[in-house]
């Protein structure tokens, strides 16, 4: 008998059934337990699926902004929005309609109350923080793109490096409106700065006490200006946000 055979005989003797108690389970108990576990797993899967569906559904209803029958009247505060100041991401938010503004004269609109913002909307952008005027201000551009989606992706127009008093913001874009191309300029002047709008510009006092000036001109003398018919609505929408 080899060593392996002897060990095998020893192991079989040690595991002999002679001293073993009666088995504690039979075929029926195995099948019962198996079916119970299977049913429990299936229930858990169904409940888990329903819970996931509920979480995704409720979460989606909260996160995604819903549209009401009134179209742009819908507004949802984004949970990630920082309440302490304006942000370039504010384009992601939908805006409440601005208070109705009456025109105070040709090209000049009535101001919202100083410091006021759209109800439920972000606070006004206010003056810039740089020493010189920022002629291509990202925060101002974000607000403009919010109300003029055609400006999204428009190339920045060449601007001079003229240093104007701090707090002024500006955006100069090469835009196209159908077959019409030209330059769109949006300028924010801080409180106390006197505007000198070019011909055809539309101005309005802003919520922060400053002035917004929007103008457009076509490429070349006599060329039609893009978005000329949308300057008034644009200024009306920008004023409460600036």
């Amino acid at each position, binding site marked *: 008998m080899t060593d392996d055979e002897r060990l095998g*005989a020893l*192991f079989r*003797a040690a595991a002999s059934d*002679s001293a*073993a108690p009666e088995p504690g389970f039979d075929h029926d108990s195995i*099948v019962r*337990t198996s079916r119970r576990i299977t049913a429990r797993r299936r229930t858990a899967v169904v409940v888990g699926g329903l819970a996931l569906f509920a979480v995704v559904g409720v979460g989606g209803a909260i996160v995604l902004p819903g549209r009401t029958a009134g179209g742009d009247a819908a507004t949802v505060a984004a949970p990630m929005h920082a309440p302490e100041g304006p942000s370039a991401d504010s384009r992601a938010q939908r805006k409440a309609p601005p208070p109705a503004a009456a025109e105070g004269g040709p090209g000049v609109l009535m101001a919202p109350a100083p410091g006021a913002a759209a109800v439920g909307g972000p606070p006004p952008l206010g003056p810039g923080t740089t020493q010189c005027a920022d002629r291509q201000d990202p925060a101002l551009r974000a607000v403009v793109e919010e109300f003029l989606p055609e400006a999204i992706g428009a190339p920045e127009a060449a601007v001079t490096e003229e240093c104007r008093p701090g707090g002024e913001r500006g955006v100069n874009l090469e835009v196209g409106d159908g077959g019409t191309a030209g330059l769109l300029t949006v300028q924010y002047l801080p409180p106390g700065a006197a505007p000198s709008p070019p011909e055809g510009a539309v101005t309005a006092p802003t919520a922060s006490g400053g002035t917004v000036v929007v103008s457009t001109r076509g490429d070349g003398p006599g060329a039609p200006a893009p978005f000329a018919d949308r300057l008034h609505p644009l200024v009306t929408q920008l004023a409460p946000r600036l």
Partner: protein
Amino acid sequence: MDDASEREFAEYFRARRDAVRRTAFLLCGDWHRADDHAQAAFVKLHRHWRRIRDRDALDAWVRRTLVRSVVDESRRPWRRERFTAEPPADRAVVPPASEAVTTRHVLVDGLRAVPPRQRAVLVLRFLDGLDVAGTAAALNCSEGTVKSQTAHGLTALRAVLGDALDDLRPAG
């Protein structure tokens, strides 16, 4: 499961229950816990019966499930086995009884002192009579691992039992 599958499972259960219990007993050293492990393995087999296509591999599948169950249990904090350099003083003391009872007591006590994976290799090789390749397939490891675990397991068993292992008689 359909009726034909249920009949197949019942047939396999009747044929293999006692063998699986014996293997579980040497793996854990206690008949009641062996029943628990064997029952868990058969329940798992019943749940997966239709998905196991290779009927020739059923034994290997059950052995693997059984070993995994015992090894996993040995890792739980309340069941964790502690290995000591010195065996308890009365570990190799042969109780005054018949040779079969003596063999069972000494060998089962000695196996408890062997680490679980090495114990599993020894049980599959010497109780179930598997060769190196069969043991490797059952434990899902390489043949080299089986060889080394066998050598280490036997060394550990001899370290615990000493001459008692050679004195045992495979009676019963």
